[in-house]
């Protein structure tokens, strides 16, 4: 198989003496959809946030397209990347947050245009055309001039997806994108994500939506206590989990209704 788009080796993250990630090895190939599941506190979100260095790992390394993120080797030693170098790498990695984090002082259109204009140096006309196209794609053409506080949670999250896509990322990170939504709004966001998956986007998704994970993921990773407990194709993880811990988690999730 070809070089993975994301290669994670020995990743550790500690807050004080508390080890949140205890050594994670994981590969994500181009076009792959990977779902991270597990109980809260298992480290899934921290793992995701390490991939674009919003969280600085304590140990291990992450390669994006073969290049280490966060550190650069200079004279045989590894140094922290400069703010500008790190920003350049992050520009190619889209991220969607649980709480949307739209920019409240900008319109929907401006939210989507900000990255292309300020980071990619796109002209306003070009950036606006791209932004309008993406907003049409997520079904929000009529909301371009609105401010985020006028939108429902589901609409805000779709704008957030468009904002990330405007940077033409080679990888998209989703951090529990539907967890802050009212139940009736979950579907519209998952539909956009499903469409994105069908178009071949590489996606790492932290989610509690097991049905979604089962139907969209190429690979499901179950984490607990900062370790990967089990990973494999969704059919196997959901229908025939090999580890007791996975079984216990899945049956608890299924019976929560």
């Amino acid at each position, binding site marked *: 198989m070809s070089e993975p788009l994301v290669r994670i080796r020995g990743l550790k993250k500690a807050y004080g003496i508390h080890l949140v990630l205890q050594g994670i090895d994981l590969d994500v190939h181009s076009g792959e959809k990977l779902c991270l599941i597990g109980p809260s506190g298992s480290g899934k979100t921290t793992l995701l946030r390490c991939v*674009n260095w*919003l969280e600085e790992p304590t140990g291990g390394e992450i390669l994006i397209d073969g290049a280490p993120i966060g550190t650069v080797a200079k004279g045989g030693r590894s140094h922290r990347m400069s*703010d*500008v170098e790190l*920003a*350049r790498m*992050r*520009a*190619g*990695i*889209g*991220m969607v*947050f649980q*709480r949307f*984090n*739209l*920019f*409240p*002082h*900008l*319109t929907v259109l*401006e939210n989507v*245009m*900000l*990255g292309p*204009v*300020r*980071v*990619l140096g796109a002209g*306003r006309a070009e*950036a606006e055309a791209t932004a309008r196209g993406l907003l049409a794609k997520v079904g929000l053409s009529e909301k371009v001039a609105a*401010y985020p*506080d006028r939108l429902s949670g589901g609409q805000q999250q779709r704008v*957030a997806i468009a*904002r*990330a896509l*405007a*940077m033409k990322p080679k990888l998209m990170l989703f951090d529990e994108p539907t967890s802050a939504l009212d139940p009736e709004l979950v579907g519209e966001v998952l539909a956009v994500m499903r469409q994105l998956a069908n178009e071949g986007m590489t996606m790492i998704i932290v989610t509690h939506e097991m049905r979604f994970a089962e139907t969209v993921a190429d690979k499901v990773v179950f984490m607990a206590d900062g370790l990967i407990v089990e990973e494999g194709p969704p059919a196997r993880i959901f229908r025939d989990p090999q580890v007791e811990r996975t079984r216990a988690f899945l049956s608890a999730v299924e019976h929560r209704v």
Partner: protein
Amino acid sequence: MMDGAVVTPEMLLYLLRTLLIGAGATIWLTAASLVVAVVLGFGLALMRLSDSKVLQGIARVYLEIFRNIPILTQLFVIYFGLSRYGIMLPATVAATLGFGLNGASMLSEVFRSAILSVDRGQREAGLAIGLTSRQAFRLLILPQAARTAIPPIGNYAIGLLKDTSLASAVAVPEIAMRAKMLVAETYLSTEIYMMVAVVYLALSLPLARLTALAERRFSPHRSAA
């Protein structure tokens, strides 16, 4: 002038004109002090929020000194105190410096808390689309912090406008100083101080209105993209 003399319209006009000349000095002093306070206060807030312990320490010491000494004392120290060391500042400059340095300590706290009040997720979302820390601060944090900071800045400006009457103690010819001189000249203290009250009101009400307008301008509106 005799006690109980009739107050002529000409006399009232003379009083008003003199007070309005003083109002010019009051406005000038308020505006200049506000500029010093905003610029220096913003710098101090950035120092407090920086990673450097040294800068943080300097800003803290500054804050405690200027916040905890009465403004009148600060004016005396700057105007009379410095002159002993050969630094003779014109009264208006000394007063501007006094109010500005004092105001910077208060506004630095306003700016600092406004910046800290912006949700952490805003910076993260900015970094995630590839902005540098600096860009995220300028394009995302500052505009949102400004919205929070404008009402307290407006309140401070109105307070400052009234406090500039203290500058009469170091002989700045602003409203209060003019009033004192007019009272000594005409003994019409009631008329004069009524007029003073009206002049101050006429200055501070538009300032309150201006604050409200500025606040509206910064609430969801305007572009940064």
